[in-house]
């Protein structure tokens, strides 16, 4: 019995060591990012360096972002607007689609589901050029890129119904039947029964929708090109890393990165429980 206990203690200690190592590896880049963002711009120049801890700390880089020399605030606002709008509309659409596909049996239902599944197998970038010119017909590129990006994300969001439908499938149908016998319409059931019961999945759907636009570089850069004030943060700031026009912007990139990461990170941590529920449910249902 004693040896068993000792063995257990030893294995626990090893476990802790491994976990601490993992945590260090996991956090290291973030620590680096934050440290670099506080590096003094005036004393150490803004380029990349091969040391971790800055020699002088300062808020130079953050000051630069809000100084009006760049449109950082505008880019941030654009991204936030896109993220909020996409979150609202995408969640509504996914709920509608999921309810229809989960609860109602109509002609062409399986055909529609299969068809969307097949559509999903085409790589998204394939259609960039076509989407660009489609949006241009509506005047939603360059100056109108923000609504344009919202429109494109929302328009195709119906296809991402899987997780939500899976959740609806687990709500017993008997509830619906009972309500219908009492004379409730489908719409009434949807609004007054199903939606209030689906809080976790709604939060999950909204969270996922909210996080995506922060990282949208590919399509956003394609739609907004040549119009600085309609860039989102990803488009504007990747230039600071990739283009030689912006040398010495590395620490500014780090500072901007920190500012972007914080709200998303906080929201995520706050709603982590729902995210886990959604991901797990989705993984098992497939």
């Amino acid at each position: 019995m004693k040896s068993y206990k000792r063995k257990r203690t030893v294995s626990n200690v090893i476990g802790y060591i491994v976990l601490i190592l993992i945590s260090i590896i996991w956090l290291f880049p973030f620590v680096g990012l934050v440290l670099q963002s506080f590096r003094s711009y005036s004393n150490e120049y803004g380029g990349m360096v091969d040391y971790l801890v800055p020699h002088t700390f300062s808020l130079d880089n953050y000051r630069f972002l809000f100084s009006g020399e760049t449109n950082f605030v505008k880019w941030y606002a654009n991204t936030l607007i896109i993220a909020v709008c996409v979150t609202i509309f995408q969640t509504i659409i996914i709920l509608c689609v999921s309810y229809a596909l989960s609860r109602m049996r109509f002609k062409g239902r399986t055909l529609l589901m299969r068809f969307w599944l097949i559509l999903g197998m085409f790589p998204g970038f394939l259609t960039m050029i076509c989407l660009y010119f489609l949006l241009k017909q509506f005047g939603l590129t360059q100056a109108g890129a923000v609504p344009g990006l919202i429109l494109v994300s929302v328009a195709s969001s119906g296809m991402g119904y899987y997780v939500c439908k899976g959740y609806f499938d687990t709500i017993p149908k008997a509830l619906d039947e009972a309500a219908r016998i009492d004379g409730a319409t489908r719409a009434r059931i949807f609004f007054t029964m199903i939606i209030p019961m689906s809080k976790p999945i709604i939060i999950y759907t909204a969270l996922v929708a909210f996080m995506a636009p922060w990282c949208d570089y590919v399509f956003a850069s394609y739609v907004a090109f040549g119009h600085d004030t309609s860039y989102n943060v990803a488009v504007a700031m990747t230039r600071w890393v990739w283009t030689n026009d912006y040398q010495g912007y590395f620490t500014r990139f780090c500072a901007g990165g920190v500012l972007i990461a914080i709200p998303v990170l906080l929201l995520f941590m706050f709603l982590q429980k729902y995210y886990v529920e959604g991901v797990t449910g989705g993984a098992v249902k497939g």
Partner: protein
Amino acid sequence: MKKKLVSVMLSTAVAATMLAGCGGSGADSAADTAQSVADAATETADAVEEAAGDVADAAEDVAEDVTEDVADAVEEAADDTDYGTGEIKVWVADNVVDFTNEQIATFQSEHPEFSGYTFTVEPVGEGDAAGNMITDVEAGADVYAFAQDQIARLVTAGALEEVEESNAEAVKAENDAGAVSAATVGGTLYAYPITSDNGYFLYYDKSVVSDPSTLEGIVADCEAAGKNFYCEINSGWYQTAFFFGAGAELTYDTDDEGNFTKCNSTYASDAGVVALKEIAELASSKSFQNGSAAGEATNVGAIIDGTWDAGTVKDLFGDNYACAKLPTFEGADGKSYQMSGFGGFKLLGVKPQQDDNKLAVCDALAAFLSSEDVQLARYNAVGWGPSNLNAQQSDEVKADEALSALAEQLQYTIPQGQYPGEYWSLATSLGDSVISGEITKDSSDDDFMKALEDFQTTCEGYAQ
């Protein structure tokens, strides 16, 4: 409906002013006709839109006839031309946006006749400009700056208008020959040169590098000091320092449409092997780093870079800042070669327009932004070396340390002509093959030759 109305009004207004401007006896009657037709057009416009369109067309026709009749008179009165209204988009690199805005303000005050136009300047880097222009010419800028290596591609895609005749003469007369040839495709001048400093030379840290005259010496000094030596060998632009230096050649002939007709290359030769071996030799040094952006470099001992980074490098080296022409290198055959390279240029282009008046404004703007005064002002503001001959002779430009190193290097360089877009990507592949160790300094001569033969045949394949 409103749009059509406006256009009717506009065309009548244009016709009216033009005719009012000429006023000669011969044109009088025609002018009256046009005027009355135009009046009729304006009146009817409100009532029957359809008809108004027709009448306006008629008015335009008449106006056109008249214009031809009294072409001379019109030319005399050109200053009174109503250029109408419009929006002109300008793309330049981010660090000259403010500068360009100031210059455009000057331009506007000098040209009150363009008061109907608004100008917006957007930060689009010279590298991205061409790609974006080609993706959608219509949404692209009306006047934009780009690096010369993109010019043929832009001409093929229909994103560059020929330089207006009188401007073309001025451009050819006032800028250095290399700049003019860089802006020329086939026999036609397609762009306005604005800088002539797209060449590279050596920046070094005096405390690290004692003698910047040989490549071997520089590398040895950097290795000894544990510092990095930056040279972007996977760029088709920097790579040529070795190839051209060793005596290999690579140029293309183009026709007027921007198509490549012939490739003249001697890369697959002993000279080419010497150059590639030297690149491999350099890449094997532990102090070697591939790169040419001073702002992104770390622990720099020496870097091959251009004037645009002069400020950055000064910050990096402080009191130890120094620059020199490119070094010589000792080839595998024991001979000494002076590193060569491209002398390149930044150009300003005008997009083809569907409206003559707007085109005229764009032409004027591009000519202004590439003029002697503005080039000099640009040098003073951001340190870009001018392509204008007079500006080059000015005292402040001559006193610039980096620019004089570049000038010294310039005698060994070859003005960069037209190269197909694929060349740059192919050169990156060649450089990457060396950096990644597919080709090393220990490879056999046959391996070097094979790589260069591949390179040369592919290069030749780009010309039809």
